[in-house]
Structure formats: C-alpha cells, structure tokens
C-alpha cells in the first residue's frame, strides 16, 4: 500500500511538471509570436543586391513639387483614353465606345456614341470633334450632322494623338512611327518623321506617341525612344529638340517616355510618364521647373496620362484608372 502511494505521488508530480512546462511553453510561444509579428517580415529571401527597389525612385523631393491637386471631375466614360478641350473650355473625353462633353463642374452636356474606340480626340473652333480611332480619323458634330469617317491610314496604323489648327489636322501614328498632316477633307498633305529624313525616324517601342501645337507655328512631337521632345515647323521642317533619359526628376525614365505632352500659353511644357508615373513642368527651353504630380498621386497600373492645359493654366490629367479628370494647379512664377 505504501509502495502504491509512493508511486501515485511520483506520477502526480510528473504530470504536474508536464502541465507546468506546457503552460510555460504556451506563454513563451505567445510572447515570441508577438515579437515576431512586429519585426521585419521579409526574411528567407535573396539578399539586398537582388532587390530592385522601384519605390525609392517613386519618392520625389517635396521641394520639387509645385502642383496642388483640386477636386477631380468624373470622366464618366468607359475606359477613357483621350482628353481635349473645346473652344468653350468644356472637356471632351473619349473612351471605349463614346465621347462625352463635360462641363468643368462635372455636368455631362452631351454623349456621343462612337462606332469605334477613341484613342485621341481634338476639337475645332466650331465645335467639330476629330476623334482618332485605331487606324483612322472620324469627324463628329454635336448638332446632328452625320459623322464622317476618313479612310484608314494603313494596316499598321495606331493613332495616339491628334491636333487641329486652321485647315490642318496632324495625327501621330505610333504604329507606323510617323506624323501625318492632313487637310480637313482627310487628304494627306505631308508626312513627318520618315526614316529617310536622315534622323532615323521616331523610336516608338510602345503605343505612346504624342504631339502638341505650340504657340507660334510650331508642332512639338515626342520621340519617346530617345526621351526627347522635338519641334517641327508646321510644314514639317525639323527645328529643335530637348530632353534626356534618366530616372532622376529632370530626365525621362524607362525605355520610352514622355508619353504625353501639353503646352501652356507661356510656352512651358507639361509632360507625363509611364513606369514612374509623374507629371512634370519644363521651361520652353526644356529645363525642369518642378514636378506637378509624383507617383504617389497615381495608381501603379496607370499607363499613359493624357494632358490638357485649360484657360486658367490649370493642368488637367485624364486618369484612366480612376476614370477622372484630375485637376492640378501650379504654384510657381512661370514668367521667368
């Protein structure tokens, strides 16, 4: 009996120890998890040299930022691609299957269903809309006059930008890598940027190729592969160029940037980039004035931001991801 009792006590002690150890282990596990959860989680991967930290490039020196964002305007068009202003200062937004004319207060004036997807759009002084579809231009009027479709410019054509002034229509063709000058009947007048011009033509690795009309008889065309903005006379003679590549704020990043440009009344340039999504302002001579909006303002999946400058000098950016026209005001003395 005595033996049995001893045995019992021994086993009791053993089990008690086990239980105490279990409780202690549980408390330890708990404490360790708390510590582990809040420490650096990225362990067990390849070392530092394997990390390509794009986010470091995304940070912009706050001293360089000169843009202030205002209330955005809903774009209200499915997959918006193209932005322009008409003579009355209203927004023309072209999308996958329609063009909307939107007041700056966001009220939709008109909706024009489109037979083809709109890649770029421009408005004439009389309110006529010139829409660049993938391979041709369509002319639309809001007063009920039937639409006119110009013939295709070729099988490889990918129109990405359009500008209208006087009797001329310029369209940028990223697919054939040249700019077409047409008259208002759709007849081809001349071509800019053919490879035999001695300059090697435009380098356009992706469907982003923009042009904009300058104030004095000038046509500015982006050469994204060379990271440059080139000016031509309206007849097509090459004049000057500026811009360089680089991930720094002054340069244009990646393989093919800027994607879009717009020109302010004082001749300064607004540019937008993909990859490192940023909108910047340059002097007429091509020196950086500041960053209007850095990558933190946009969603990472943005590929190409169409730009327009309105009558008050505000920069309007078509954000295809948020389906908005983003509005930025520039706080800088531009008359240097």
């Amino acid at each position, binding site marked *: 009996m005595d033996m049995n009792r001893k045995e019992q006590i021994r086993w009791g002690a053993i*089990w008690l120890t*086990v*239980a105490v*150890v*279990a*409780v202690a*282990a*549980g*408390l*330890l*596990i*708990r404490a360790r*998890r708390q510590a582990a*959860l809040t420490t650096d989680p990225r362990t067990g991967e*390849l*070392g*530092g*040299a*394997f990390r390509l930290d794009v986010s470091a490039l995304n940070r912009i020196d706050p001293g360089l930022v000169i843009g202030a964002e205002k209330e955005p305007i*809903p774009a*209200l068009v*499915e997959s918006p691609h193209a932005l322009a202003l008409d003579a009355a200062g209203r927004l023309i937004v072209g999308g*996958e*299957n*329609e063009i909307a004319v939107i007041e700056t207060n*966001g*009220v*939709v004036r008109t909706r024009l269903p489109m037979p083809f997807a709109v890649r770029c759009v421009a408005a004439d002084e009389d309110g006529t809309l010139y829409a660049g579809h993938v391979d041709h231009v369509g002319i639309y009027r809001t007063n009920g006059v039937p639409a006119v479709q110009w013939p295709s410019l070729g099988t490889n054509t990918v129109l990405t930008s359009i500008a209208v002034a006087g009797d001329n229509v310029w369209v940028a063709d990223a697919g054939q890598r040249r700019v077409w000058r047409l008259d208002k009947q759709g007849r081809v007048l001349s071509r800019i940027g053919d490879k035999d011009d001695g300059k090697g033509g435009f380098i356009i690795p992706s469907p982003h190729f923009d042009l904009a009309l300058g104030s004095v008889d000038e046509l500015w065309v982006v050469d994204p592969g060379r990271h440059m903005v080139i000016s031509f006379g309206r007849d097509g003679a090459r004049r000057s160029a500026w811009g360089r590549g680089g991930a720094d704020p002054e340069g244009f990043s990646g393989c093919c940037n800027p994607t879009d440009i717009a020109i302010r009344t004082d001749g300064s340039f607004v540019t937008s980039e993909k990859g490192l999504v940023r909108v910047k302002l340059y002097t007429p001579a091509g020196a950086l004035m500041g960053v209007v909006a850095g990558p933190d303002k946009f969603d990472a999946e943005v590929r190409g931001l169409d730009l327009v400058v309105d009558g008050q000098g505000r920069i309007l950016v078509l954000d295809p991801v948020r389906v908005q026209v983003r509005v930025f005001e520039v706080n800088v003395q531009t008359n240097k």
Partner: protein
Amino acid sequence: METDRDKTTQVVRSAALAGAGVSGVFCLVVSVLLLVNILQLKLNDPLNAPSLVALRAQYAGQPSDESLKVQIRALDLMARRAFFASQQQLRLGGFLLLGGAGVGISLLILAGLLATAHPDPRHLPPLEAIWARRAGLRRGLKLAAGALLALALAAWIGADRDLGRYQVMTPASARAKWVPAIPVPSPAERLKNWPNFRGPDGNGVSPARNIPTRWNGKTGEGIKWKLTLPRAGFSSPIVWGKRIFLTAGDGAAREIYGVDADRGTLLWTAVVTNVPGAPGELPEVAESTGLAASTPATDGERVYAVFGTGELFCTDWEGRPVWSRFLGKPENHYGHSSSLLVVDGLLIVQFDGTSRARVLALDSRTGRTVWERERPAVSWASPICVDTGRRKELILCDSVGVESYNPANGVTWWRQDCLGGEAAPSAAYAGGLVFVASDFARASGLRLTGTGGVEVAWQWEEALPDTASLLATSQLVFMATRDRAVVCLKAKDGVRLWQQEFASQCYASPILAENRVYALDRDGVMHIFEAAEEYKPVATCPLGENAGATPAFAEGRIYIRGLRNLYGIGE
C-alpha cells in the same frame, strides 16, 4: 570445418567492409567540404558582396567616375565567377557524396550477404518478460497521450487570436447584433404580397396564381378599374393586403398615395414635408428619371419612400408621417432611382452617387442608422436580398461590380468587379447563381462557391439591358435589352437560347409569374411568353397608355402604372 570457399568469402567480406569504411571516410570528407562551401556561400554570397553593393551605390552618386566603373566591372566579374564556381562545386559535391554513399552502402550490403554470423537468441529477453513489455507499451501510450494533451494546453495558451481582433476593420456598428423590435412579417406573409420593387425578394419572381393573361386598356376588356393619379412618377406600385402604395413627385411636391386595391380609389395622399435638414433646393435630374423614380417599400405596418431630392419618408398605414430623414443631396447625374427594401426590420437604402456613395440599413421604426457601408461607385440599380440556402445575401450592383453583404451587419460576403458603364439593372438570383449586367459592359453569371465567394461562370457581351433588371429561373436568364429585344440565355453557361424583338423597349423589369414572363414595353404593351427554352408567346395585351414602371402582382391581379393612370387588372 573451414573450406577454401569459406575462406574466400571471409576475405571478400573483409575487403567489402574495408571498402565501405573508405567510402564512409570519403563521404565524411566530402560532406565537410560541402558544408564549408554552403557556409561560405551563406556568409558571403558573391552576388550580394557588400563591397559590390557599396561600389554600385557610390557609382549612382558619381556616374562619370571612370575608375569606379572599372572597379565595379572587375569586382562584378569576380563575383559572378565565384557564384557559378560555388554552384558547380555544390553540384559536384552532391554527386560525389551520392556516389560515395552508394558504393559504401552497396559494399555493406555485400558484406551483410556474405556474413555467417547469426542473431543469438540467448541475448533475447526471457519469454516471461512479455507481460512487462505490454506494461511498457501501455505506459508509452499513456505518456504519448499525456504529451499531446500538454501540447494542446500549451497551444491553447499560446494560440493566435489575432483573427478575433480583426473586427477593427469592420464598422463599429457592425458588431452590434441587430434585434428587430417590431414583429417582422413572416416570409410567408411577404410572399403573399408585393412589398417592394420586383416582388418579395426584389428578385422579379411572383409566387401569385391566377394571373390574368388577357386585357386591353383601349377597350376596357379585363380591366377592373382605372385610377388617374394626381402627379406623375416613374416608380412602381407595391401591394400589401388590400392596399396599393405609389409615389409621385415633381418640382412642386413629392407625394405618397394609398390606394384601395379592390375598388381603385385613392384612400390617402401623404405630402413629403418638414424633412429635417432638407435644403428645399432641387437637384438637377434627367427628365426620364424625375424625382420619384425609386419604388417605395412596406413591411405591412409602415410605408417607406425615398425621392430624388434625398428625402426619405416613412408613413403609417393611413399615410400619417412617422419619421423622415434627409440623406444629403444625391450627386447622381440622371437622378436617384434605387428602390427601397425592408429586410428583417431593417430598411435598406442604396444611395450610390458620384461622391459619398453608400448603403445604409435603418431601423425601420425610427429611421436610426444601424449600419452603413461606403460604396465604390455610382449606380441606379436596386438592392435584392435572397436566401441562398446557406445565408441571406444582400446583393447590390454598382458601376464597377457587384457586392454581396450580410444584411444583418453590412459585412461584405464577396465582391466581383464585372460591371462597367452605368449600372441600372438590378441583379437576379436563382439556383446558386447571381446574374448581373450593365449596358456598355457585359452580363455575368456568378456561381456561389463552397468557400462563400463567387466565381465567374460565364460572361456575355452582345445585347445588354440599360434599364430593365434581369430575371432568372434556375434554368434561364432573361434580359430586356436597350435595342428593344428580350434575350434568353441559358443560366448555367450563358449561351443564347433565343432573342425576340419588340416594337418598343422595356423600361419595366420583366417579372416571372406562373412560369410565364411578363415584359411591359414603353408603349404599354405587355408581352407574355413562357419561361421556356424557346420563345413561346402566350399573349400580347395593350394598355393604351405609355408605361415605364414595373407592374405589381398579387393573387389573381396585376397592377400596372401607366404615365398618368394606375390600372387594376383581373377579376
């Protein structure tokens, strides 16, 4: 007696054992070398050499320094060579180790085969020890079980209960369990009536019988009564018992009407006034929407109505105001048109605008907010609430996708971004599938999965509705499209079964009753056809008046709202 043969065997066996020993030593050496190599690679990975990283960083600062470039290139070459050399060494080491081990083990096996020694049973425990062995097994088993229990205890103490604190992410109000204070009408009671837009669940299905299939508003055939309404509105009538309720409104006034269902007489008119906080100014709305596009709802005790002004108004059975709320000026460029729904004592208000889009669940007695969720985009669609057999799902469409909420607390069950354009058609549910569509985007069939989410079963992009909601049975899906057609798709795969064009588009949502589809077009013509895999028309009944509202169904009756008049059809 040792024979020569035995001798040779002995010699071979010794040789094999010696060989195995040599292999063992070889393996040991190789493993040590391998280990050193691995450690070396771990300690200073040539591709992560700090000197190289530092040089690169320096170079980023001084890109024109030629000597830096030369240094980087030299170091880089070295690093890459070292990397591939060590990789090759590792591979070679592995093969050597394997080969050595293979040879060693083979020799050991050979030695074992040649062995003459045999196990000696004299070392075995005595047979009597069998009982002690059993005791040992028992003790081991108990020990293991005890250890597992101890482990469970430790686990319980150290358990990860972060998931429990996850509630932080859901709105604070969602945690409170909602207990309706008034008797909720039973599902059977709801089924007998037409308490909100598109019937009991908002799903477009009527359980009523003896629905008329012949009438003519021009000749008066089949028309029981006709009531001219004081004001216009595009909202649909609702029915509870012997009462019909409607809303109407324009810039001058917004009104709710109570109508006797048997005689077609106007019993009362409630004028929406004195809504606290309402500014009085009217939002800009499209003419085709107006200020009374949202259908009211009732729970058999009260009537709830919302207007394009943002005014939400609750009256009692006799039209006396109970409570009212101003939800804010709808920022919605056609005008607010989402209808109301009462779910278990909660009034669900979908209030999707271009800014501050949200869905609210209000205590139907007081109008107090029980829960509120932000919504991602604008819409004109109405909520539906269906029982999927597993749970109740409150399904809302917006211009980006479709989201399902727990009606009790507003927590999202699932969301699928499959819509686009401007979402006006409401969802439909049948047989484990949710169907949604919006014009200029696509229609989708979403299958509820076992894990509580959805997967896209099919998509369809050809002809799409822009106003009318979808209608579904477990076999078929019907859509009244923008181009004046009704399309019938197979529910399980979205294959088109048939398509029928009419003279005019249907603004009213098609309704299923007695396995027939009732589709009312804008000319007021009701197209009745069977819900079947081919188009089988049953009847075509003109109203003699344009119509846009979805009709209400009750036992033996249809109530149709024309532009000016309300019709009671049936015996």
